[in-house]
């Protein structure tokens, strides 16, 4: 039972972090009709910025943290302006491949900077910060995971308020419904595009910190864990924020349960799932769900006319 609770908690925390990346995906997809494969790279870039300011330059953690997040947001904005604005109206797939190109560029630069040694994220509270953990009734709960869960939930709440109440939030919703109609209403659609990429960048950087924080460290393969937000989005449906959150939780929980129970399952049924199965498991789930519901759990079905 303890193992189950432990796995559940870790899964929820992971899922909450993934949901930040996933929301970024969904925001970009809804507003600009672009499926950004560059989002996982943005996650790593965010982590890289924070690590650079906090450990290499050595300014105070909080300044480094916010500087890193803002810079990642600005990078998202710049990418939209330079590479994606000329592609407005092009086929969806071409734009998706273009973001793969961006992803390659970002990752080469970053891999070169990271090198062989893992990078640390810096620590706000050296005595009990990222590396510490809490012990409640046999469960080991890392501070980092608690913070990740709370921060993610808080960010999701802030975002939902932003979409409902603020002027730009409403403009973004209008743009995602119909770009031309939004233009006709006097909404600056170009600015909305930029803003969406900015917000997606912010979220990616937050997620980057939590994915690579503490003992996880930033390495050349951190990118793989960031990419796991992709099946999460697909499970939930490409255009649903609720779906993104629920999909991420499913993915997070799967990953944690597989991690803890793989050995038991293998010995109980005498099968071999192989090393690193917890990396593949999310994709298998995505596979099954897409077969049952081709548009994801919460995605709207496309109505097509000839």
């Amino acid at each position, binding site marked *: 039972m303890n193992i189950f609770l432990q796995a559940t908690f870790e899964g929820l925390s992971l899922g909450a972090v993934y949901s930040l990346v996933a929301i970024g995906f969904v925001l970009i997809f809804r507003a600009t009709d672009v499926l950004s494969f560059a989002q996982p790279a943005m996650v790593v870039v965010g982590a890289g910025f924070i690590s650079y300011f906090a450990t290499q330059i050595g300014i105070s953690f909080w300044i480094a943290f916010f500087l890193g997040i803002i810079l990642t947001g600005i990078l998202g904005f710049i990418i939209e302006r330079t590479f994606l604005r000329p592609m407005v109206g092009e086929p969806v797939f071409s734009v998706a491949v273009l973001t*793969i190109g961006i992803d390659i560029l970002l990752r*080469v630069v970053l891999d070169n900077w990271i090198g062989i040694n893992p990078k640390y994220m810096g620590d706000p509270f050296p005595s009990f910060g990222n590396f510490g953990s809490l012990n409640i009734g046999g469960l080991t709960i890392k501070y980092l995971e608690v913070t990740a869960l709370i921060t993610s939930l808080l960010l999701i709440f802030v975002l939902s308020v932003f979409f409902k109440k603020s002027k730009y939030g409403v403009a973004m919703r209008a743009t995602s419904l119909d770009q031309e109609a939004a233009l006709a209403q006097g909404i600056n659609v170009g600015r909305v595009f930029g803003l969406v990429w900015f917000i997606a960048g912010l979220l990616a950087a937050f997620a980057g910190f939590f994915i690579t924080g503490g003992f996880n460290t930033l390495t050349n393969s951190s990118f793989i864990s960031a990419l796991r937000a992709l099946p999460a989005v697909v499970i939930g449906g490409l255009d649903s924020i609720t779906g993104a959150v629920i999909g991420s939780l499913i993915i997070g929980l799967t990953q944690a349960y597989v991690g803890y129970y793989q050995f038991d399952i293998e010995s109980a049924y005498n099968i071999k799932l*192989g*090393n690193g199965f917890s*990396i593949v498991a999310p994709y*298998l789930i995505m596979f099954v769900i897409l077969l049952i519901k081709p548009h994801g759990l919460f995605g709207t079905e496309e109505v*097509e006319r000839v």
Partner: protein
Amino acid sequence: MSKRPDLYTSYRKETSIFPNNTQKFWFLVMLISAILVCFVASDYWLILLTNALLVSIAAWGLNIVSGLAGQINLAHGVFVGIGTYASAVIGGVATTSVIGYELDLLIWLPLSGLIAALVGMIISPIAVRLKGLNLGLVTLAFVFIGSHIFSNMVFVTGGSGLGRKAAKLKIFGVDLNSGLEIGNTILQKNQILYFISLLVAVLLGIGVKNLVRSKTGRAFAAIRDRDIAAEALGINLFRFKSVSLAISCFYGGIAGALLMTTFGGAEPGTFNLLYSITFIAIVIIGGAGTVLGPLFGAFFFVLFPALIQNVVLSSNLSEQDLLLSPQQIERVIFGLFIILFLIFEPRGLWGIWFRLRNYFKAWPFSY
């Protein structure tokens, strides 16, 4: 008539593989020079050229399913990998950790293509249910599941980090690994491989050209342009989508088998996401939906990095002087080219070639 190469008097003529004599002429010139290159080029360039020919076979495969039939496939590298290991199992040598049957090239080459095609057929019902971006994402899942299976099926692939040796180069029972003696000249292994690749590439290239002008090819184009309209016209979507995937996998499998033989072995980690994306980039850089495009793209993709490496090596710069290693420079340029081609020349190298050709066709009255 010979003065008016663009005048066609029948549909058959217009759709023939070489519609006019100029094209026949240039095809022959290219073919003969391709054969002659074999005796002139050094081993380094010969292997590169072989590699380029094989990569273009794989790129043709992706072009059939993505460029021609319009179905996004991010997992082409996995099918190339299936062909690779199929050839290694059928034609390779068994060791304590891997299985192998040491059969003839004439058996393992077609079989590795067919096995890849079979796997494509098996998963095609899944792919047919979806379309557009969702299809792309499912194929992305294939990449991860595929590389997981590759690295865990140790008795086939040799396991991650280790890999296994390639199939034996044996035709009609004659072992060609140490070269072949014809009269006074000795054909080295690399030259033999080059000839085999050239032959297969020419055959499969004509195959693509034929496919494009056949009923199946027209059905593919109809599905790409509007699948619902195609269905309304009586095209069986399920059948043609599966067929396109199967043919594409066949090409990938053949290319994979020969690629592995060229390099002598393969490690399961090769067939990762970047490997699959490479083929997409080649098709885009070359020009999607055309026959010549993937060929241009593949040669560009294989020869350009070699040029960069030569430049870097000959420029007397040590690795410390450069910000990035040659491999990273390669990747940066690769990423940049994907972006720039998509923004400025969506028709790829083929589009540039097309405009150049038309410019000189009408010269001096080009506008």
